């Protein structure tokens, strides 16, 4: 008896459509977000994450509307990320029906925003997204730095120290994406996952690089993650959520069925 590890399908949404690229290029259309979320709910997904990659202002209204519709039809937790910069952005998403928001770039430019957000809305709804890239040379002990703007801009900030700081400021969960692995289908970066899981006492979601079901299991058994997030392997029908859960359960991981 105990807490189940979670499988979280991620929807990258641009202008109201689910898309998925390889390292942020080569975008393929993967459908209507509400329909996609409903499908995952029916398959037994434990949560859904909605990342709004729309840059424009007009796109925000579309996003809020999509979140509202999703929250009316999908009765599992919903996290919304992308463009969360102000307290009002958080309020808008929570009012639209999101359960948590994911803060990324804004936390890097203004760490106190995380503290302010947690004080106002509670740590339970504040996820800090960390996009990490390996900066150590082969053979050296692992070292990872934070990158912003979809992995394009280096910040010089150490990822493990950053995770500790975010946790201390009131983040309720960490969404850790390896920018080296994102879209590569070669598995999570286990090194950075384990380093951050061991450094903080809040749940960590591993993300970036899932290509098969063993990768998902490895994120939990080797990386120590509390939840695993993936997009492509589910969107294009390679595997269902149920297949993934059965596979992980067979490896002794506690799952919800």
């Amino acid at each position, binding site marked *: *008896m*105990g*807490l*189940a*590890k*979670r499988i979280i399908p991620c929807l990258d949404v641009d202008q109201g459509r689910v898309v998925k690229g390889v390292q942020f290029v080569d975008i393929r259309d993967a459908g209507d977000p509400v329909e996609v979320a409903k499908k995952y*709910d029916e398959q037994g997904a*434990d949560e859904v994450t909605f990342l709004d990659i729309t840059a424009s202002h007009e796109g925000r209204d579309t996003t809020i509307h999509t979140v*509202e519709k999703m*929250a*009316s*039809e999908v*009765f*599992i*937790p919903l996290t919304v990320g992308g463009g969360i910069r102000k307290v009002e952005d958080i309020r808008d998403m*929570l*009012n*639209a*029906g*999101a*359960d948590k928001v994911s803060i990324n770039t804004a936390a890097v430019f203004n760490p106190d925003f995380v503290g302010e957000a947690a*004080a106002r*809305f*509670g*740590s*339970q*709804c504040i996820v800090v997204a960390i996009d990490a890239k390996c900066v150590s040379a082969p053979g050296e002990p692992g070292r990872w730095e934070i990158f912003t703007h979809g992995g394009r801009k280096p910040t010089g900030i150490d990822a493990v120290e950053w995770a500790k700081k975010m946790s201390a400021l009131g983040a*309720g*969960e960490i969404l850790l994406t390896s920018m080296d692995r994102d879209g590569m289908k070669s598995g999570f970066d286990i090194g950075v996952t384990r380093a951050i899981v061991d450094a903080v*006492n*809040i*749940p960590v979601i591993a993300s970036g690089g899932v290509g098969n079901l063993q990768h998902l299991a490895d994120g939990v058994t080797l990386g120590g993650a*509390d*939840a695993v997030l993936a997009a492509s392997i589910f969107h294009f029908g390679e595997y269902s959520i149920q297949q993934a859960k059965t596979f992980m359960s067979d490896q002794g991981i506690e799952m*919800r069925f």
Partner: protein
Amino acid sequence: MSTIAIIDYGMGNLHSVSKAIEHVSTNTKVVVSSDQHVIRSADRVVLPGVGAIRDCMAEIKRLGFDELVKEQVQQKPVLGICVGMQAMMEHSQENGGVDGLALFEGEVEYFGDSLYDGEQRLKVPHMGWNQVKQSPGHPMWHNIDDLDRFYFVHSYYVSSSVNAAVGVTEYGKSIAAAVSKKNIFSVQFHPEKSQHAGLQLLKNFTEWDGVA
């Protein structure tokens, strides 16, 4: 057509609770309201809650909902959710100590910074899907399997040793997942986010007459 009023005291999103109840019951009208008259005229009442207890209790008192809730629980079925459940206890350790509505005996405690299950260190908040061991026979558990999983997200808990516990979950400690007394059924988890099991619990609430 019966009516369920979800008490709106400005703490968080009530849309999910409202939509989930509408989803499971076609003959229930759901209203999200801060109007005492509307709440008094409903057949059933939901006291939700997210965020920190100090802010929740401050708003409940400012709007006069403390007396309203105490009055309503004498008259009709009331469902407390998450911080709504915690607010019904005598006292919470959160925010340096906050008094609750004292509808149930017991204290809301912090999980602590070193929570363990055997050798394994447990993360706080307790976030995710955990099993609930039911006290058999309560009508609110109708059609829900014992040990079914519900979605939890909280850092403070009520011990399962309280008299009113009717559902128990293990997370480093034995915690009350549900407490009940007469017309009140309150849950620490989020039924509106707990898919089939949670929707069934909400459906049961739309049919519950308030007698355990």
